[in-house]
């Protein structure tokens, strides 16, 4: 499960993806050409502006697309990015320029940095200004720590106030999960029994051929448990999804692109629009990393996800702000 060689990470890190001599870019190319139907384009530092520019005629047809934006950390003022609002606004401009417009946007949490007044509004207002029909939110720990989620759930919790959610769009079933509430001392991100029960019920009536997209803040798989980059009952949730032919799991939290494929389940973590974090286990601990100013935008970004009916996997296009 936690085999480093199966990971692909973002650019601009000196680390290679494993001890097999295959570097990150080589690995991604392998993935792209492995005949799995997966189209994976990481633009980190290389093809950056191309991915989210208006679609060209050469691009394959798609049934719809959506955007994943993550870890906007509105209110962050650290050395790692003195203008986190500016880079957020740049990401919004990129979304607005997408043609065709995404059907909807998913924000995978850490909407705010410290849950300060106005921070949620900054994000909701900016995302309303895009052409997306809807925006779906899921919280990060920075969105709920101050009040146990009262404000977040009041805004985004839905009719039942739980915050977890599912919806169907053009034959794809989407599930948003919360794994940042009720942290216990010494513990990890968790979904909790009530949510697991809900998830089990939510998917049990679906045909196994239904494509699933699951999104949550903290990775549902064990990226790096020592830094809390794992959901302690994530395996149980994934157990309910194993029978499906196509499952895409989208997470945030770690501010870097990683990918893992396990059976029919593809895992992806996303870039932040605010600041990068170290590769797992590199350095003394997690947290904002300061990179040279001219490199900052190449380690921030967002993700465009395209769905084409009949393809077993969704096409994931990560784009940096460079």
């Amino acid at each position: 499960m936690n085999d480093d060689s199966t990971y692909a990470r973002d650019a601009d890190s000196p680390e290679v993806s494993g001890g097999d001599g295959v570097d990150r870019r080589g690995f991604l190319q392998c993935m792209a050409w492995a005949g799995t139907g997966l189209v994976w384009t990481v633009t980190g530092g290389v093809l950056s502006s191309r991915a989210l520019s208006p679609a060209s005629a050469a691009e394959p047809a798609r049934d719809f697309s959506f955007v994943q934006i993550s870890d906007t950390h509105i209110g962050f003022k650290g050395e790692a990015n003195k203008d986190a609002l500016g880079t957020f606004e740049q990401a919004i401009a990129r979304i607005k320029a997408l043609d065709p417009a995404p059907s909807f946007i998913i924000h995978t949490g850490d909407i705010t940095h410290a849950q300060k007044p106005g921070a949620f509004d900054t994000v909701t207002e900016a995302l309303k200004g895009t052409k997306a029909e809807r925006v779906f939110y899921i919280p990060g720990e920075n969105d709920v720590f101050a009040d146990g989620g009262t404000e977040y759930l009041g805004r985004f919790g839905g009719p039942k106030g739980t915050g977890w959610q599912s919806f169907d769009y053009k034959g794809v079933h989407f599930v948003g999960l919360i794994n940042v509430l009720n942290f216990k001392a010494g513990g990890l991100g968790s979904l909790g029994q009530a949510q697991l029960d809900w998830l089990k019920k939510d998917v049990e009536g679906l045909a196994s051929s239904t494509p699933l997209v699951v999104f949550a803040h903290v990775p549902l798989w064990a990226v790096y448990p020592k830094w809390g980059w794992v959901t302690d009952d994530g395996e149980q949730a994934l157990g309910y999804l194993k029978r499906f032919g196509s499952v895409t799991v989208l997470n945030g939290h770690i501010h870097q692109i990683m990918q893992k494929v396990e059976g029919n389940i593809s895992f992806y973590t996303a870039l932040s629009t605010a600041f990068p974090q170290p590769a797992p286990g590199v350095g003394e601990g997690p947290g904002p990393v300061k990179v040279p100013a001219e490199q900052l935008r190449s380690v921030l970004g967002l993700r465009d996800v395209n769905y084409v009916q009949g393809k077993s996997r969704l096409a994931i296009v990560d784009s940096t702000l460079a």
Partner: protein
Amino acid sequence: MHGNHRLIRVRWLWRLAVLGTATFGALAVPTWAPAGQSGPGTASGMAQPVAVAAQTGPRIEITKHKFSRPTLTVPAGTTVTWLNRDEDVHTVVSTTQAFRSAGLETDEAYSYTFTKPGVYEYFCTLHPLMTGKVIVK
């Protein structure tokens, strides 16, 4: 609401400190007044020269998601100050809710006066692997 009275912007405090004792004292009283925390064992209502005590009392720094002194033993009446040196937000929250800081951003600090002997375990509610304890004798 979240114990903001105990949230100190350290850079600001240092700037104040060089202004002189009189100015510092006058400004420091409302800033450092104990938050109205409830429950037994809290510092609520205690008249305490927190500013002075906090500067002379033990300090625990938070760096790279670690408490610099994960176990600290102090006599009753000691004020302990936690100072966040990370760019991440952290909190200092007792596992029994005996004390609870607001979110501490970079260079922000939180102080708590331990009046009763006991073992006080605490953690960061954003990063729960960050744990520590204060043993009060």
